């Protein structure tokens, strides 16, 4: 199920503005890759280019190649809608649909695929997704309640359940814990560890300890100045990046000397 990602020579533009320059990085299937770097260095933009969500902004475009198990993500025959069904995303702030119940939130993606489902089948998907997201025990008694009534950490896990209910190949997470308290954060981090066995996970984080705790690979992004494009400085095994970075900027960032 999980697929690998192979990015080569990727440039991302907003109109004429080059936001991210020349990224080449392989991402292995069933691994957790963390993107770290100062604000504005393009890591979120790059993450969003992996499921073509950056195209939501007018004028956004890319040059270069993104291959998902060898298939060109930006090929002429690829519909961004299908791409996003294949590659799930969890956002910085929890965003369950406020007008839907917990149950319907989990099934939102399924309903888009417009498959007719039996009630039992739908129930199974909801339970399985919520169990995978570690939320089942907390909400099984109130599946018909609005998702917006949950705590922030529960809402974020609901969003994870919603993303994985359609069984995507890859799960992208854009600072999924930055709006959460430390306890909710640690619950989500444990969840990432478990999900790794089934999904390829890419996570953007500002929290270096988090990158060190959850990821197998780490990529460090930086930009040389305001208005300059963000660049991938280096990437490698997380232990290596944290213990023995090759670039002085990486070392400075990790040790908290800037950023």
């Amino acid at each position, binding site marked *: 199920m999980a697929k690998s990602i192979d990015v080569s020579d990727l440039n991302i533009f907003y109109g004429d503005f080059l936001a991210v320059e020349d990224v080449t990085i392989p991402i292995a299937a069933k691994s957790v890759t963390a993107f770290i770097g100062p604000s504005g260095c393009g890591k979120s933009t790059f993450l969003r280019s992996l*499921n073509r*969500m950056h195209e*939501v902004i*007018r004028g956004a475009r890319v040059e270069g190649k993104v291959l998902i198990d060898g298939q060109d993500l930006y090929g002429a025959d690829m519909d961004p*809608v*299908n*791409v*996003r*069904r*294949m590659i*799930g*995303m969890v*956002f910085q*702030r929890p*965003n*369950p*649909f*406020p*007008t*839907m*119940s917990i149950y319907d939130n989990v099934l*939102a*993606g399924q309903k*888009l*695929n417009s498959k007719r489902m039996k009630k039992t089948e739908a129930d199974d998907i909801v339970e399985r997704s919520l169990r995978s997201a570690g939320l089942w025990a907390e909400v099984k008694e109130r599946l018909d309640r*609005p998702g*917006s*009534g949950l705590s922030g950490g529960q809402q974020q896990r609901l*969003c994870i359940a*919603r*993303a994985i209910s*359609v069984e995507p190949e890859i799960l992208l997470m854009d600072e999924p814990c930055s709006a959460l308290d430390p306890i909710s954060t640690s619950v989500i981090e444990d969840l990432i560890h478990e999900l790794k066995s089934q999904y390829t996970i890419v996570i953007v984080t500002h929290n270096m300890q988090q990158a060190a705790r959850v990821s197998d690979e780490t990529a460090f992004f930086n930009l040389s100045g305001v208005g300059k494009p963000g660049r991938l400085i280096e990437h490698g095994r997380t232990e290596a990046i944290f213990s023995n970075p090759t670039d002085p900027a990486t070392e400075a960032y990790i040790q908290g000397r800037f950023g």
Partner: protein
Amino acid sequence: MTSTQAPAPGRASVRRPGDRIFSGLSLSAGVLILVILAGVAIFLTVQGIPGITAHPDEVKSGKSFLPYVWPLVYGTLIAATIAMVIAVPVAIGVALFISHYAPRKLGQSLGYLIDLLAAVPSVVYGLWGIGFLAPHMVPFYAWLDEHLGFLPFFGPASATGRTILTASIVLAVMILPIMTAICREIFLQTPRLHEEAALALGATRWEMARLAIFPYARSGIVSAAMLGLGRALGETLAVAMVLSVGVGTVTANLIGSDNPSTIAANIALGFAEATGKSVNALIASGLVLFVITFLVNFAARSIVDRRKEFSGAN
């Protein structure tokens, strides 16, 4: 957290002048609305009761109140309903196009145009209804009569085109701008977070509208529809101009020359010549319109409130 503590007994809590002035202003505004509303209701009731109880011989129509007002209520409801059926989907569609589909420049100028439409006085719509729409609807009505004549709505067709259906279409055009403008503003307020949640699940633009925009905008759409409906129910001049003069009949035929009339149009046409109890009867019909409007608004609010906890406001 000292700010949450109740003030100690015997010590007045600090009240800043700005707070006091603002709370006074908003309180008096709220009270003023209630006073005006009550004033209108009392006037209508006091002046209307003699009209309701009047003997058939005392009024111009020669009928007791209920048979007199019933065809007008029927005509008012029919005209407003058809106008809503036409205008609500169009308003939502246009608003969605402006807010989410059109290129930004086009959307902005379209929105501006629609705001302008809202400022056209109703007499102009009335003129347009008689002078342009009615004659142009005549062949269409003949076609309806010929092909769908077996339905009770499309009976013998009017030769002038001045029918309740024409009046309803004019009403629909009149209420379109205000509903579109409100819907557009609300659609634009949809949190980006919710739109992205839908898109990231692989929603097409239309599915995004269904998942994120419409549920979020639901109560706003109802408010917009209520404003439009209020105008459609109460619109006087355009309807009075389009419909051929008459007390109005109760008929299912929407395209006949023997058409129903509406309460507001009937008041406008009849008030100048009315005397004695006839005036009271007209005012009583106004009271009926007031009650209808009130009930419809009440029903709409309760529909919105029923799913309040899912509204996204919490």
